[in-house]
């Protein structure tokens, strides 16, 4: 079963197409990272999913329900924490939790206390007087205490210091039971996301460029280094999956986005006979940077 499913979802603001024909699938039990540069359409996608915005065309299904029809029954199982979330800043942390509790039949008071203790939040301080990190943590407590089946995080790490980020990730991991809940996290902070995500969706200019498991993505991306005996010259033609080819002295390096050991080595030897080829695994961050530098434009080159 898919927790989130969109079909040709589009949203236009005036003349700007924020999201274009997005067909995204987030299976139940997965932790999906929604990555992309600024203005890629990540936040708009999330707002469309949560019915904060109406789609211009297409549809989005969240927990099997059309996003336009999401009601209290569905929202009782959805947690949402966003960088730019509107919180009732006049409330204290205690008042926020007291206000939210009656709306959730599955509210776990013991978990609420555990999370409050973990984040060391001052319960009687008004939200408007909290630091940015504490505010996000308060929002997280109010969104985790009922053990949501779907957690949606929109730039949760933005502007947080490393310690608070660590606490935030730990807080999320503490509540999660593998396979039991689904998380969609849109963020620039790829290191933090890498620890959480088992699936990656890449958005650019409102288009979905990638949507696959982190394992599959990391398996097919390799940094390749070809060591030659003499100074290298760029080959006339290279496979479309080779990105960012550089020649420095006798060393040729590039990223192969369709790495397969035998095929890659064969392709290298065809172009660089007698060369030593080494392939190094890449982190999500390295893959993201490579794709960003390649301009996300070579769709054929980055697709699986």
């Amino acid at each position: 079963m898919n927790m989130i499913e969109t079909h040709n979802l589009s949203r236009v603001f005036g003349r700007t197409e924020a999201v274009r024909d997005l067909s995204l699938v987030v299976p139940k039990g997965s932790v999906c990272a929604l990555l992309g540069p600024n203005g890629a359409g990540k936040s708009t996608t999330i707002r469309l999913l949560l019915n904060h915005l109406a789609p211009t065309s297409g549809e989005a299904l969240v927990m099997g329900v059309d996003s336009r029809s999401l009601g209290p029954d569905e929202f009782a199982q959805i947690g949402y924490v966003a960088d730019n979330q509107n919180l009732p800043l006049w409330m204290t942390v205690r008042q926020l939790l007291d206000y939210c509790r009656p709306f959730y039949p599955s509210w776990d008071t013991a978990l609420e206390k555990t999370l409050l203790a973990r984040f060391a939040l001052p319960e009687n301080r008004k939200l408007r007087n909290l630091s940015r990190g504490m505010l996000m943590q308060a929002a997280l407590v109010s969104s985790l205490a009922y053990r949501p089946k779907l957690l949606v995080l929109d730039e949760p790490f933005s502007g947080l210091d490393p310690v608070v980020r660590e606490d935030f990730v730990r807080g999320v991991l503490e509540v999660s039971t593998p396979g039991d809940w689904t998380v969609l996290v849109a963020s620039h902070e790829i290191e933090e996301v890498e620890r959480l995500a088992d699936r990656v969706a890449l958005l650019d200019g409102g288009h979905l460029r990638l949507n696959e498991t982190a394992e599959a993505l990391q398996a097919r991306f390799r940094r390749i280094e070809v060591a030659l005996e003499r100074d290298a010259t760029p080959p006339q033609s290279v496979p479309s999956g080779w990105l960012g080819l550089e020649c420095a002295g006798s060393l040729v390096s590039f990223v192969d986005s369709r790495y397969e050991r035998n095929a890659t080595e064969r392709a290298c030897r065809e172009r660089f006979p007698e060369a030593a080829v080494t392939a190094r695994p890449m982190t999500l961050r390295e893959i993201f940077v490579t794709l960003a530098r390649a301009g996300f434009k070579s769709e054929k080159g980055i697709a699986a």
Partner: protein
Amino acid sequence: MNLIWHIIKKDLRRFRLPISIWAFACAIVLKLNLDSALSVNARVPTTGQEATVLSTMAAFMLSVALLGWIVQEDSLATPGAFWQSRPISGGQLLAAKSLLVFVLLVFLPTLVDHACLRWQHSDLFSSHAFISFGSGLFSLTAIMLYGMAIAAATRDNGSFVLGAIIAIGSYLGPPVAGILLNHPAAPPASAIFTSIAVIGTGGAAALLNQYLRRRTRLTFVILGATIIVSMLVCQLWKLPLPALHR
């Protein structure tokens, strides 16, 4: 019902200070009105009329601001307002806001005002007193529904006040222009009653649309159409309808 009361309690806590100030202003208005009524009864020249007018206007403006704050505390026109990602339905929110605004800004002030004034005139339980109370309640409820709809369709108190001024200006513009042009032809009571009923019905329709479907543009269309129809209703009596019929 528990959740509706839960939302009302939250709003009461949020606005306890402005509500206290508003209640104080209302008490001053009531006191001045009572004094004024007493002086009329005793055939003593009325004093302090300016103070009465000023405090009435202050209480009215506070009522309008309070209505805007209460409705916009859980905004419908701002995408991503806090309640929109919580298990709170538009119906629950509408019920909570309507109940609070009706009891606080319509029912209690009308009741207290009428009870005190009628008690002063010693006709508290007369049929005239009940009719007067009923018509006051009816008019204020209609205005409240319309005002709530404007507040629900606007994003902040400034926009709400602007919308309210435009609505009041549009509604009262033609009669005021008539007075200024020395054609003070007041419509009959039935036309005024129908016109207020149109405002209440249009306001309720806009409110339901905004809370249950969150279609802000349609809400504005309904609000605009309501003002036009209510203005026409006020002007219809001038047309020689029987002659047309013949």
